[in-house]
């Protein structure tokens, strides 16, 4: 038989070449494909008092708890409410009955199926304990009932557009009924949710650990913001409290941590070019605002508040507060541009006026003649101090006489409830998905004490209006009123910085950055 070595060899070479080309072409795609496994080590700014977000617990609690617990609704990438544990939401009886259909087959981490009895118990507890439920929902609720295993009905005295947005917040998780029966209004100590991760252990001052919940029932839609399909790619997440920001950042550089949250923008230029580190700008995050005491003293006078607004040049203040240009934005809208449903430039003509002449005129009209203004600030949050210091310098050039009182944050919180102790303080607002949620300063009883009949009327109208376009128009009127009456002065938008190792993939750099749909490249 004649040897066919030449043709066989040639065929083999050809086949190998084709295979090599296919592998090389597919390599980037393979490298990008999510891979399960590994433990994600997240360095956080501190530790929460509890993971029970029905009670006031702060941002860190929400950030960790969102992996273990889920609510009936959540927010999409544009921060609009979408179903999560719910299947659908509708209203009947002229808006006085909200009907929530639940998804079937969702399990709690203890194996029990999530059903309407758990939803009813959770909603009732929320209405007793959680601030937004107590303020905006409970006074209007007649009853919460479960006509069947997968349906919840909320009966209202009058139609309200607030129910859905409030149920979409991170502080509205569903707990098993038996856990609520056990702990009632005390902090829950059994963390059993329906999330893609289940609670493992909490070593105080060391870490909180969660692991993949193998029986998690994900939504079928593609990931969309905090909603859609949630996949626990990593086996475990360890949230490690590291109070010192420079140590959190150093831990990324040394490989001790995979993600470091709440990093000072000062680190940005140092790590920007490092191929082993992702520097993520967290946007939207928060806005600092100057708040006036409108109950007693100098700033009961609207003209004087307008004078302060007229004098301010926002860009240097934001630069001092935020750092580089990536970390701040001039924006008069109470809502950041990313929150498309509520972003509006209404009242823009009053923002960033830099008009000292107008300021002096308004001061004269207000009868201001150099009386001392007590301004509370704290160094515990750099940007509060830097905002206050820069604003003070500008205002003094305009003729204001300011006593900047630098105090500990706990002291500021205590003193701000006493109207005889201050005229101005600076604080910030975290991300709010919808008015008036997380805008505590809009309320009459919040330090600042803004009493305004027109505001009350507009908010009542806003609450009862269900048409999105009309609601937006009412909100524009409210924002315009805010810039005319000046109960507060929004300085601008501040963005944050988080660092991650280059091997962490799938991160969405946003407020309350989630770690589902995230994987470790190995």
């Amino acid at each position, binding site marked *: 038989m004649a040897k066919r070595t030449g043709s066989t060899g040639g065929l083999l070479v050809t086949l190998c070449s084709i295979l090599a080309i296919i592998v090389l072409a597919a390599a980037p795609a393979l490298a990008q494909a999510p891979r399960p496994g590994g433990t994600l080590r997240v360095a956080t700014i501190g530790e929460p008092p509890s993971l029970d977000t029905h009670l006031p*617990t702060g941002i860190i609690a929400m950030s960790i708890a969102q992996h273990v617990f889920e609510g009936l609704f959540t927010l999409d990438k544009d921060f609009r409410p979408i179903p999560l544990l719910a299947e659908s939401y509708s209203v009947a009886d002229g808006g006085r009955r909200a009907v929530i259909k639940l998804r079937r087959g969702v399990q709690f981490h203890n194996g029990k199926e999530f059903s309407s009895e758990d939803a009813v118990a959770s909603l009732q507890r929320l209405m007793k304990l959680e601030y937004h439920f107590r303020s905006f929902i409970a006074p209007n609720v007649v009853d919460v009932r479960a006509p069947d295993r997968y349906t919840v009905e909320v009966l209202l005295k009058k139609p309200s557009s607030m129910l859905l947005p409030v149920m979409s917040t991170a502080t509205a998780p569903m707990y098993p009924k038996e856990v609520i029966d056990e702990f009632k209004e005390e902090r829950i100590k059994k963390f059993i949710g329906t999330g893609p991760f289940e609670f493992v252990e909490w070593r105080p001052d*060391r870490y909180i650990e969660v692991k993949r919940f193998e029986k998690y029932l994900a939504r079928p839609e593609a990931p969309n913001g905090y909603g859609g399909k949630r996949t626990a790619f990593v086996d475990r997440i360890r949230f490690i409290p590291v109070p010192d920001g420079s140590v959190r950042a150093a831990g990324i550089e040394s490989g001790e941590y995979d993600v470091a949250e709440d990093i000072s923008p000062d680190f940005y230029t140092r790590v920007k070019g490092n191929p082993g580190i992702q520097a993520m700008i967290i946007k939207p995050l928060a806005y600092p605002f100057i708040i006036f005491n409108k109950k007693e003293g100098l700033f009961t006078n609207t003209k004087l508040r307008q004078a302060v607004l007229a004098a301010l040049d926002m860009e240097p203040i934001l630069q001092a507060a935020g750092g580089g240009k990536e970390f701040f934005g001039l924006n008069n809208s109470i809502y950041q541009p990313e929150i498309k449903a509520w972003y509006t430039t209404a009242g823009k003509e009053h923002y960033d006026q830099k008009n000292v002449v107008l300021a002096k005129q308004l001061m004269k009209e207000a009868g201001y003649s150099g009386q001392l203004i007590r301004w509370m600030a704290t160094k515990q949050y750099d940007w509060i101090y830097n905002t206050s210091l820069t604003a003070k310098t500008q205002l003094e050039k305009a003729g204001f006489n300011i006593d900047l009182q630098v105090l500990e944050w706990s002291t500021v919180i205590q003193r701000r409830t006493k109207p005889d102790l201050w005229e101005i303080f600076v604080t910030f607002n975290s991300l709010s998905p919808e008015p008036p949620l997380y805008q505590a300063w809009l309320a009459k009883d919040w330090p600042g004490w803004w009493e305004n009949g027109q505001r009350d009327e507009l908010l009542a109208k806003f609450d009862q209006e269900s048409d999105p376009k009309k609601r937006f128009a009412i909100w524009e009127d409210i924002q315009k009123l805010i810039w005319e009456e000046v109960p507060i002065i929004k300085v601008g938008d501040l963005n944050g910085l988080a660092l991650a190792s280059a091997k962490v993939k799938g991160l969405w750099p946003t407020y309350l950055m989630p770690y589902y749909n995230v994987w470790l490249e190995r």
Partner: protein
Amino acid sequence: MKEYLLRRLLALLPVMFVVATLVFVLMHLTPGDPVSAMLGMDANPADVERMRVHLGLDKPLYLQYVQWMGKVVQGNFGESIFLQIPVLTAVSERIQPTLLLTLLAISLAVGLGIPAGVISATRFGTFSDQFFMVVALLGVSMPEFWLGLNLIFLVAVKLGWLPVAGYVPLGSHWLATLRYLTLPAFCLGFIQSTLIARMTRAVMLDVLSQDYIRTGHAKGLAPSRVVYKHALKNALIPTLTVIGITFAILMGGAIVIETVFNIPGVGRLLVQSVLRRDYPVIQGVVLLIAGAYVLINLLVDVAYAYLDPRVKYV
């Protein structure tokens, strides 16, 4: 000696009473409110008030004091407002890293400080003496957190020799525990060693000029025997006081170092409790530190009796 010890232990009681009262008054007079700190920036005033009533913080101060002291005399330091666990539980969960760090730091401080002080004294005026004293001066002037952050940057980040921060409990991973505690122990120990070195040098110089030391040399004893068997033993007595105080200070939790290196010890607990105005924890921890301080001083006094036969307690 037994009567002396009993008297000293009984004397602990009025000291603890004064400390307890002082810390209670100081904390409650300091502006700031634990509930507001706990509930966050956006806390509704009504929520704050509800929680204050729930925690008994709305009661008159004298009543809060009496209730708290009543529990303390029974060994109950109350419950942490923030953690909602007994104060003693919170402390016991965090005592291990603080103890280990203290022991490592004091070993380093003594191990570096005493030899440096002896070498400086025996080579008085030479390059060695001046070198050690310059280093000691730098050490005393250096803030702990500055040294800590620089060591993290150099040793942990740039060289990658040791971890950045954190702690592994002592168990099967004792080597890992040692690795995590090396940098913080060095920071603390180095700075304390400079104090011990300066003290040892000063006392040694005094002792080395004594007649009996000159006699020892005249008798033909080896110089090392004169220094280490005779001179150092006498120089250790005042140095022991410094070592005792150092140990007590380090037992206080090495507050700054624990915070910088993220060690979950008593010092870090105290810092966080102060920021959160967690009164029961602050009061409890300060009382425990005060007690430890007094007991350590008692141990130092007892050690004198063994080191110096001229000292007798009646």
